């Protein structure tokens, strides 16, 4: 798979993601409070937190969909608010419950997004992507007839068709059956290993985090209460048998 | 059961902002017709006075005051245009709102002891009552306009005609309320329902008169309809459908009732109204049939 996107002046020393005193509020409700976070290139980062903790808001800020109320957020060294174009040229995004255009085929959907990302040969890129994700059989079918799992694969295809440096996944396993979850896990690991993509994943599923992620962060009521590698985490909590137990303990001590 | 549905329906319509907008639009529209009637009166009198002066200076005799040629209820002739154009669109929205929210709560309703026929009849009755209330408000505004412009209360006979005109308008608008309901039942998305209803309105208001009578849209907008040239072979077939062109029949019947253009016998007016009544009944029956088969299980309400 070749790189189809022209890249601009890179900032090689910059981390993949960098948040400094990031805050966000909806009216009077504070959703994110002074978050500092640094994620290096090549990491698979699992962002944990209960419903309403602010995970989706963080992804929305990092994908430039909303502007932070205070603080800064950078992707590959570019500021999400001031350098939107540079940021969006380097990221791929799979929102929770991705839908796409039901009347278009999977190929038409992905090709449209490839063009918007400036991919030079969109149709070749789409073919390669479907092949890479082993879902070429879906290419010419309309998305409207797809199951959640099929839609998710097309969703990933649109998110990686332009070979982004950083991939954002928001609750990617929700609604998938066990087989689908396993396929997704394998895909994420491959994307990271083959293409060196940095992955930022919001999730509830601790078992998945343990199997896929290299680093985790825990968000509680808008505050980042923990961040470390999986290995260090299990070492730090030797009494707990699973990540789930560790998570529950962290949440309890935070509240 | 039917009464419960109708009552719930009326309360829920009254609570929606859209309903207030509908009511306000109809009242403004009636008041506008009144203002236009007043302005027309004023203009005719003004032009007549000036004309008398001008003709006198030329030594010509003064013509008869043309205002005397105008029937008393002509003040409201614009209502005959506003009802099928604006009123009908509002009626579509009324019908649409009556059913569209139940796409999501239908599951809750039909898991109780109520038949779907009872439900639909309740909905129709509720909307019909709301429509009566709206039109009564409009009737009140019309009466006030007449009293102000003519500087005297309308006579009993005029009031009777006015009431008959509003009764006819109610029947005409019920057709569109029912279209608004039926389109909710045959489509899966809110917007699709609204647009299909709009399509039906376009066909009834513009396409049908064009095909049966060769009326161009700007001619349809005029309260005084010029007879179009329909001598062609084309119209020999299509003119047969003219009695079913409800907008033309409505306008003709209204003009007869208000005596703004010619006078027709009661029987011929009734003949003009018959297709309207027939269509309402057919739509109501279709609506009941559709609700019986409608899928309320998904609970989704897509835009």
């Amino acid at each position, binding site marked *: 798979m070749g790189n189809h996107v022209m890249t601009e002046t890179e900032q090689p020393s910059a981390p993949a993601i960098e948040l400094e005193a990031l805050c966000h509020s909806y009216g009077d409700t504070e959703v994110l409070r002074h978050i500092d976070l640094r994620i290096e290139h090549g990491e698979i980062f699992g962002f944990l937190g209960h419903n309403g903790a602010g995970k989706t808001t963080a992804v929305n800020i990092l994908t430039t969909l909303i502007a932070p109320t205070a603080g800064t957020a950078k992707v590959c060294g570019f500021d999400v608010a001031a350098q939107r174009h540079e940021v969006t040229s380097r990221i791929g995004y799979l929102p929770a419950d991705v*839908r*796409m255009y039901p009347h278009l085929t999977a190929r038409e959907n992905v090709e449209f997004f490839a063009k918007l990302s400036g991919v030079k040969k969109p149709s070749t890129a789409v073919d390669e992507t479907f092949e890479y994700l082993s879902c070429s059989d879906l290419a010419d079918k309309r998305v409207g007839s797809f199951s959640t799992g099929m839609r998710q694969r097309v969703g990933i295809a649109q998110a990686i068709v332009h070979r982004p440096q950083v991939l954002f996944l928001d609750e990617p396993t929700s609604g998938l059956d066990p087989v689908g979850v396993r396929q997704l896990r394998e895909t994420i690991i491959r994307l990271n290993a083959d293409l060196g993509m940095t992955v930022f994943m919001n999730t509830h599923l601790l078992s998945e985090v343990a199997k896929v992620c290299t680093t985790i962060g825990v968000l509680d009521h808008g505050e980042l209460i923990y961040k470390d590698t999986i290995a260090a985490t299990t070492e730090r909590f030797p009494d707990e048998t699973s990540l789930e137990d560790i998570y529950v303990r962290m949440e309890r001590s935070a509240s | 059961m039917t009464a419960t549905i109708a009552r719930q329906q009326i309360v829920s319509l009254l609570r929606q902002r859209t309903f207030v907008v509908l009511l306000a639009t109809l009242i403004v529209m009636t008041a506008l017709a009144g203002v*236009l009637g007043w302005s027309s009166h004023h*203009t005719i009198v003004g032009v007549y006075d000036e004309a008398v002066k001008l003709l006198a200076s030329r030594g010509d005799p003064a013509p008869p005051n043309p205002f005397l040629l105008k029937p008393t209820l002509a003040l409201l002739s614009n209502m005959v245009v506003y009802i099928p154009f604006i009123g009908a669109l509002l009626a579509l929205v009324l019908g649409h709102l009556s059913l569209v929210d139940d796409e999501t709560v239908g599951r809750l309703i039909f898991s109780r002891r109520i038949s779907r026929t009872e439900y639909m009849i309740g909905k129709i009755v509720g909307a019909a009552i709301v429509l009566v209330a709206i039109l009564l408000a409009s009737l009140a505004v019309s009466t006030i306009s007449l009293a102000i412009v003519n500087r005297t209360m309308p006579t009993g006979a005029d009031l009777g005609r006015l009431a008959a005109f509003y009764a006819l308008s109610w029947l005409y608008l019920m057709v569109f309320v029912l279209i608004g309901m039926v389109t909710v039942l045959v489509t899966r998305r*809110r917007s699709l329902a609204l647009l299909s209803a709009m399509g039906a309105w376009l066909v009834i208001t513009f396409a049908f008169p064009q095909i049966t009578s060769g009326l161009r*849209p700007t001619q349809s907008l005029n309260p005084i309809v010029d007879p179009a040239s329909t001598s062609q072979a084309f119209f020999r077939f299509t003119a047969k459908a003219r009695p079913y062109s409800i907008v033309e029949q409505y306008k003709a019947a209204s003009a007869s009732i208000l005596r703004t253009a010619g006078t027709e016998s009661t029987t011929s007016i009734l003949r003009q109204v018959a297709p309207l009544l027939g269509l309402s009944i057919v739509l109501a029956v279709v609506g009941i049939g559709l609700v019986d088969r409608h899928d309320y299980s998904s609970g989704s309400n897509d835009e």
Partner: protein
Amino acid sequence: MSESTARVKALAAHEYRAAVRSKILLVLLGILVTITVVSVYVAAVDHRSKVADYAAYRAAAQASGLARIAPSTLAPLSLLRGALEYLEIIGAVVAITLGYLTVSRERANRTLTLIRSRPVTAGELASGSLLGAVGLFTTLVAATTIVGVVCVGLIGNDWINAAQGFKLLLAAIAAIIYLGAFYCVGAIATANTRVAANGLMIALGIWLLVVLILPQLGDTLDADNQIPGGLFKALTLDRAGETEILKHFSTYETTRISIEEASFAKHYERFAFAMTEVQDKYRGFSLGRLLGAKRNDIGWMIFYSFALVFGLRWSFRRQPTIPQETT
């Protein structure tokens, strides 16, 4: 091609494709095309007999050796009046629907998030969507015009000449701009409301006001229209007398005219009718003189269109990208 142009092109192609795959839009287009054809057909059949009458008169006059033969007063382009009126009324509904669908589609499919997480600016999104819509309107207006001209030629027995063709082209361009403006109205109203169906209703309300109510008001208020058959005629007044009397009603006339001026539809109508010789008074005008006479309408159309295009860009920029319920 710059990257931005490529993105606008992709968005325009996407808009066009989505439009032609939308069933409701096709149904509305079907209604529009059917009644347009009927209106042009009916007018053309009438025209044919008039053309035949004139030919007979001409032949008779020539046979009797008349030196001066009255020129034909027939205006074949005016047969397209119905088509232009339907574009004005129903075409505007189609355009609003398309504008509504542009916004609601991206919301319902949750694809606006996907689009906006790419290097696409709100301005590019607005330009691309508008261009796609204009592409569709061009197809529609071109098809209507061609069918109309062929109907007039084949059925009406009167083929239009190059000069008339050019004027018709200008009327067609005005129609495309007019539809583009209503597309903006539909998209702006939908982008600014939380429930898309409410946006559609607001846009249709504007349509009602601009296309039906304002022009009808202006027309109804016309002093001469107060009595069937004409007020001035009833008062046995000639044209000079009418002008004399109207001098006393200048404020009234100004009000009436400004009501009409407020309607974008009226400007389109006046321009298109002048170009297609619907109004007798413009027949025989040179193109330059015609454009001069219509400069007011041209100016208003340009003003409204620019305002609406800016409105579209502004609305796309400020419309929330993410579904409202997410935290």
